[in-house]
């Protein structure tokens, strides 16, 4: 080997983000449909959660068996293994809190693994509130563990990490964006992304697009929502897009009762969006308006739709400027945000090839949009139970029936607080043209518990009691008509929120889901006929949407349950 060749090889191995032979992520992977790797939140930018892998299919899935299971422990001792467990590397500690708040599942015990797991070059990257791990995708061996000492905040979940070259990014409940070296788990930097004192808490997975790390956050008080873009190298803020009007002259201000109401209007961005490389648009959903359960202070009149709450919003990733929006719940009064994944599909509609964006919303309605312009194409109710709207207006938006607001005497309303669907990722199967969605048809009595809107800040002023359910199902929505091709009802879920955590389809003709009764299930898809359950493994309460990848030429199916990561393959 010549000196030049040696030098070139050395450069190739040392290049930051190098993709020749290192462990880093080749950014080109992000723009392709999900295949061998799982390099971003939904496998690819479209959020279809459809894998082109077909090694495991309807004919052999019954032979799917355990490859490995790896149990994780949160907190300072999380890297060291248990008494009977093999030794593991010590935990790398970060965080700004002098005295970290003790939170089971974060500082100790079994973590809640409700996020996506990245799989890049044979390594899995896993996160939970305040914790991150790297794991060998062949056997579940832990390579490193990182723990963030928390100053507190809502520790409801963490949706996963993002990757850029050899660098990882994840958010903490106490509002930091943390970047780690993927090889070692050592911290590169951390940046405060929201004001902890205003009760922001951060759960979402960042998304890397080009030289941008797109970061959302959450809040249950009444702080304004926003999306931010950070430089993956330096951690510098590139732009910040507010989802509510913040000053006089801002667009949408006339849809609020006052500027003060808008500035306290919510619209949090707490689930990752989709990305359309052609238009450079990042397409994401926004949260509910606040106060959540009364329109009195923010929208007493019909014109007060409270933009851009409960909306699908498209922002140019280079400029941070909004290109279009569509509001799915004008003046929402039930805390049904519209943060559900917006799935990008190229398909026929109305006899023409269209570039589409579709969302099944928490409010029980399905929306089909043109993703280039935001043009509304179709609205259809996908929950039979949803009873809160008086009808659909000329813009294709369901119009709220004030009699189904929270009332002092109580109103029987579906969906319940959890929604007809929620963060639970849907899956779109290009072979059938169907969008598969977790559908929850629960009813609650909604009671207004305050007559003083000043006590209804954030999520105040409401008591909701679940009083029944028509069940939890997978609904197959034909986007061309919005009608259901089929609905598969889970018998064992009892209609509760516990259960179905998200969906995955593969080119092997399979749909993976948990059944809400402790089993990961593989269904054989049969077109417009209801699917057939073909395989299951009882692994406990499944916490995330299943994923699939190949390592060493072999296809794996991955899911988490009760603090453990489970991998399956064909023996």
């Amino acid at each position, binding site marked *: 080997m010549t000196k030049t060749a040696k030098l070139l090889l050395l450069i190739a191995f040392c290049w930051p983000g190098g993709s020749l032979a290192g462990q880093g992520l080749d950014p080109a992977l992000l723009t392709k449909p999900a295949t061998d790797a799982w390099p971003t939140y939904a496998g690819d930018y479209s959020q279809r959660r459809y894998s082109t892998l077909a090694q495991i299919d309807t004919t052999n899935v019954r032979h799917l068996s355990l490859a490995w299971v790896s149990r994780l422990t949160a907190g300072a001792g999380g890297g060291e293994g248990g008494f009977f467990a093999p030794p593991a590397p010590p935990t790398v500690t970060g965080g700004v809190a002098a005295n970290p708040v003790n939170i089971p599942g974060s500082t100790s015990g079994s973590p809640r693994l409700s996020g996506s797991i990245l799989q890049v070059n044979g390594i899995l990257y896993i996160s939970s509130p305040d914790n991150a791990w790297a794991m060998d995708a062949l056997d579940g061996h832990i390579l490193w563990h990182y723990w963030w000492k928390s100053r507190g905040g809502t520790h409801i979940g963490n949706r996963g990490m993002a990757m850029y070259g050899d660098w990882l990014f994840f958010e903490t409940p106490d509002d930091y964006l943390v970047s780690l070296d993927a090889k070692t788990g050592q911290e590169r930097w951390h940046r405060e992304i929201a004001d902890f004192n*205003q009760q922001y808490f951060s759960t979402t997975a960042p998304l890397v697009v080009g030289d941008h790390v797109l970061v959302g956050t959450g809040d249950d008080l009444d702080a304004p929502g926003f999306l931010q873009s950070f430089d993956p190298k330096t951690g510098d803020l590139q732009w910040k897009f507010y989802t509510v009007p913040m000053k006089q002259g801002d667009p949408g201000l006339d849809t609020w009762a006052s500027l003060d109401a808008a500035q306290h209007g919510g619209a949090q961005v707490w689930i990752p969006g989709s990305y359309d490389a052609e238009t450079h648009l990042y397409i994401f959903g926004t949260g509910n308006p606040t106060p959540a359960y009364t329109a009195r202070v923010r929208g007493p009149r019909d014109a007060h739709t409270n933009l851009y709450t409960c909306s699908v919003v498209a922002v140019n990733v280079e400029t941070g400027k909004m290109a279009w929006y569509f509001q799915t719940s004008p003046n929402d009064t039930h805390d049904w945000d519209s943060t559900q994944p917006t799935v990008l599909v190229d398909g026929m509609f109305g006899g023409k090839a269209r570039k589409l964006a579709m969302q099944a919303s928490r409010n029980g309605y399905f929306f089909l949009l043109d993703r280039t312009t935001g043009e509304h194409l179709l609205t259809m109710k996908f929950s039979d139970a949803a009873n809160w709207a008086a009808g659909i207006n000329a813009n294709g938006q369901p119009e709220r029936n004030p009699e189904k607001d929270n009332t002092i005497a109580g109103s*029987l309303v579906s969906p319940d607080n959890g929604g007809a669907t929620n963060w639970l990722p849907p899956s779109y199967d290009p072979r059938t043209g169907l969008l598969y969605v977790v559908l929850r048809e629960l009813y609650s009595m909604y009671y207004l518990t305050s007559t003083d809107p000043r006590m209804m*800040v954030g999520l105040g002023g409401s008591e909701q009691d*679940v009083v029944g359910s028509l069940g939890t199902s997978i609904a197959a929505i034909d986007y061309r008509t919005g009608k259901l091709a089929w609905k598969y009802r889970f*018998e064992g879920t*009892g209609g509760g929120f516990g259960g179905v955590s998200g969906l995955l389809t593969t080119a092997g003709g399979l749909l993976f889901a948990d059944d809400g009764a402790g*089993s990961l299930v593989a269904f054989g898809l049969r077109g417009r006929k209801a699917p057939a*359950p073909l395989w*299951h493994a009882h692994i406990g309460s499944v916490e995330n949407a299943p994923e699939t990848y190949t390592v060493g030429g072999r296809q794996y199916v991955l899911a988490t349950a009760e603090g453990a990561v489970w991998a399956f393959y064909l023996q």
Partner: protein
Amino acid sequence: MHSGRRFRFLGSVIIACAATMTASQAATQRAPDYPVRPPAPPEQVAHGQQVFRSNCSFCHGSDARGGETGPNLVRAQLVLADQQGELITPIVQNGLPAQGMPKFSLSAADIAAIAAWLHSQPLSDRGTPSTLDILVGNAKEGEAYFNGAGHCTQCHSVTGDLAAIGARYEPKTIQNLIVSGGGGRSFGRRSAGAAAPKLPPTTVTVTLPSGQTITGDLDHISAFVVALRASDGTYRSFARHDAIPKVVVTNPVQWHIDMLPQWRDSDIHNLTAYLVTLK
């Protein structure tokens, strides 16, 4: 209103859901209060309230949630960021002339006490019990519905299972029970009073290919397994494949489930108004 078809409420429903209620995770996972401040001594909080009432409430309201001219201070950004008065003090001592707030010559200790009182105030009533009266219905119309259109007497009796129900449960619990038919874990989540009555169990009948039938209380069910407990306590489970064995689940509150999409809120309110009179 409901049709005769739905009235087969004790009829067998193949593959019905086992239990109907669990508390919504989203609704029950309450955010902790931010930021986590050590509570101030009660006498300091009381003193703060007194100082606030004499100096600040004229503009900001006696509860500090906003008055004629002053904004809501409890959820103000600056107050949320303040720890022990360090951010509030300069504003009180210097005023905000541009916004019409005069300066006040209060001692540092008085202002720290005001801060302690402000920080002790809840940001909202989230999670606190409601004392509002939910009874708006007409008891007479509720009684007519109970005996007539509602067909409630097919299963229930005001001298039997519902005797003195108005003395046993608070109105909100009764109203929730009317819709649910019983059971559930989320009832009275924030309400005082007795726990809701337990539901009679969901039962299941399994018919084996041999023709043998086994009946018992449903333990759990999925697409792959059905399990039951027989009347003598014996636990039995069966693998399921395609439609074998035949499984028939009977939910005792199936009528209430079928009724969910049919209810009018006014009928629910009237029924509640009637049932609370049964003491």
